[in-house]
């Protein structure tokens, strides 16, 4: 598979992946209103797996596609264009690259194939209730007992922990040092004795997040990735295409198209006040696209993106929020409905709620502004 794709130029590659996605992505899964559980995205996961397209960024020797940056982005763009659902991708996106870089040979040999086959579905255990945006303040305690660590504590906002059979966590293995320096990266099965999971309904009444409790959970020493107390460094460096993916103009473009259809449904498509608002959004979307393409072109040239890429996230998420605000005002009483509107498949309330967390998670807009003011603008602390 990999060889034939390498030979294609970017235009041919795009045409090729587009054709395959069109033919293979299950229509009923496209453009989901919510993120899909494993039970729902599994068919698509397995199709990608069978095609060998599950891990575009992994090297070929580990079963990935080994694509260059440009082709990775093209693949992402084509997946977005077709509304392909997000798969249960923590293993592929987060753990895989980290293991490839820092894992032992045994860990790579064991875990990577199980991710590719869908045998293991991973959850990411970083956040904690009292840490919040101050992620390094985490307190999940790992006590060294020779052969193993014993974990006590709690993680929260774990996406689909209720789907996963494995979890990777950041745990505090040394309390005596600076908070970033006493953290290790550990792997453990979700059925370890002492682990319990409590789903948390979000505002969309969806159990996307969970709390995970650790009560004297044993983790054998060979489940440590890399060196002890280096976990924070590994996790922090794991910022690749996610940083640009979250700034994709696709959500806003879809949201704006929905706003227009909503205006039609409400008989206000020709209302001058709407048209003026629509024009302003169109202009903002066009500039967001221009910005996205700048960063995307830099990635394609093999450059790494600095702190300023956070601007993209702020612009993309805040624009999408304002578009959904407009949907809400446009929708009349439909704005309050729990389910999609009867008739046209529009769901302004769902869009509005979908847009909320994007400015909270993955670095809140407030935290990103703090970071930008230091790292990019060099303003004093």
């Amino acid at each position, binding site marked *: 598979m990999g060889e034939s794709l390498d030979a294609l130029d970017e235009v041919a590659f795009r045409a090729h992946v587009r054709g395959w996605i069109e033919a293979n992505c299950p229509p009923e899964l496209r453009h989901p209103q919510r993120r899909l559980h494993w039970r729902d995205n599994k068919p698509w996961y397995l199709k990608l797996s069978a095609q060998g397209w599950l891990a575009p960024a992994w090297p070929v020797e580990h079963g990935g596609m080994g694509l260059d940056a440009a082709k990775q982005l093209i693949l992402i763009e084509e997946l977005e264009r077709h509304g392909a659902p997000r798969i249960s991708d923590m293993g592929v996106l987060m753990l895989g690259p980290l293991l490839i870089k820092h894992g032992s040979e045994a860990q790579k040999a064991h875990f990577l194939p199980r991710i590719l086959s869908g045998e293991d579905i991973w959850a990411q255990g970083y956040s904690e209730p009292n840490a*919040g945006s101050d992620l390094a303040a985490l307190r999940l305690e790992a006590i060294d007992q020779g052969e193993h660590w014993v974990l006590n504590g709690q993680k929260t906002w774990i996406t689909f922990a209720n789907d996963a059979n494995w979890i990777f966590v950041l745990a505090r293995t040394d309390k005596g040092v600076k908070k970033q320096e006493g953290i290790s990266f550990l792997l453990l099965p979700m059925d370890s004795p002492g682990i319990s999971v409590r789903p948390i309904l979000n505002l969309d009444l969806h159990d996307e*997040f969970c709390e995970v409790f650790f009560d004297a959970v044993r983790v054998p020493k060979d489940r440590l990735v890399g060196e002890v107390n280096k976990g924070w460094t590994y996790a922090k460096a794991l910022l690749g295409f996610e940083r640009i993916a979250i700034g994709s103009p696709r959500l806003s473009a879809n949201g704006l198209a929905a706003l227009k259809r909503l205006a039609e449904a409400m008989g206000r498509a020709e209302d001058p006040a709407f048209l003026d608002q629509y024009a302003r959004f169109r202009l903002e979307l066009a500039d967001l696209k221009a910005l996205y393409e700048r960063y995307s072109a830099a990635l394609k040239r093999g450059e790494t993106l600095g702190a300023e890429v956070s601007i993209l996230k702020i612009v993309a998420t805040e624009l999408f929020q304002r578009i959904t605000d407009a949907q809400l005002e446009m929708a*009349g009483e439909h704005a309050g409905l729990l389910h999609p509107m*009867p008739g046209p498949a529009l769901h302004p309330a769902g869009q509005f709620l979908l847009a909320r967390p994007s400015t909270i998670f993955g670095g809140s807009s407030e935290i990103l502004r703090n970071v930008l003011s230091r790292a990019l603008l060099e303003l004093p602390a």
Partner: protein
Amino acid sequence: MSMVEMIRDSAGAVAPRGGDLSRIRALRFTRPGFDRAVWRQMAEMGWVGLRVAEDQGGTGLGMAEYCALAEELGRGLAPEPLVPGVFSAALLAACGDAPGLEALLSGEALPLTAWQERADTLEAPGTPGAPRVFVPMAAGATGFLLPVREDGGLALQAAEATPEIVETQDGGHYGTIAAQGTRIGTLPAKALDQALDEAALATAAMLLGVMERSFGMTLDYLRTRQQFGKPIGSFQALQHRAVDLQIQVTLSRASVEAAAATLDAGAAPAARRAAVSRAKVRAAEASLLVTRAAVQLHGAIGYTDEYDVGLYLRKAMVLANQFGSAALHRRRFMANAVDADE
């Protein structure tokens, strides 16, 4: 104690000031979605007949008192359909000797008015046979009132119907009614217009309570939640954000209370419509802005269903467009306001 203060005080019986929302949570996504015993209690306190003259069995209070009450119920997220109930009472009272007013005022019956023929409107054309949509809490109605066009005017009909239900984000619902009714009186168009304005303004007042409480919760959170070793309310960017939200709350109160005073002073229809539309625009926009920011400032926990601040956002999503969206009221304000530079 002024009448406004008294009515705020008495609202505590239904919407406890302490902020315990367990009653509200228990009623969400149930039918009828509110507590009939509480409704009866509200009627007994004279709230349903608030805008009905004393000689018709009401309590004859002003819009200032009505708005104060609606604000308190908004603050407590009470799901009982006060505004629809008061609206029905106004129509029955306007018909003179139409039957059913007494039972409504006492809380025995709850006829809800099915006036709306499409989304986002303040016009009730009374089209005979047209399905009536977006009747709030319709599953709890004991019957329906229908304004229906007849030669040269409107009749008020009473009807029985089983509404078709769609659920709303706040745990309540809307009903669609398709029914033939029995004529029970003549409905003066002026009275219907006035009742719609009063309902819109009372909805704005509820939104004021909604935003104010969610903002209060947020201030508490900012004062106590620690991050990077400090209460997050000590971070200047969040402080300024909080001030901007307070400004919205303050402007909303000024707008709603000025509109209530305008109505209580017996303003002419155009001035009344302009005042109400202005207050509804501000309340709709500010309530969404404030409740959205409340969720954002709470961070991840604000995005959970189990934390109360989200309930206020969901209530604002429903009420913001009831009795007209901000877009509708902006147009209506301009059609009715006298020139700015008077």
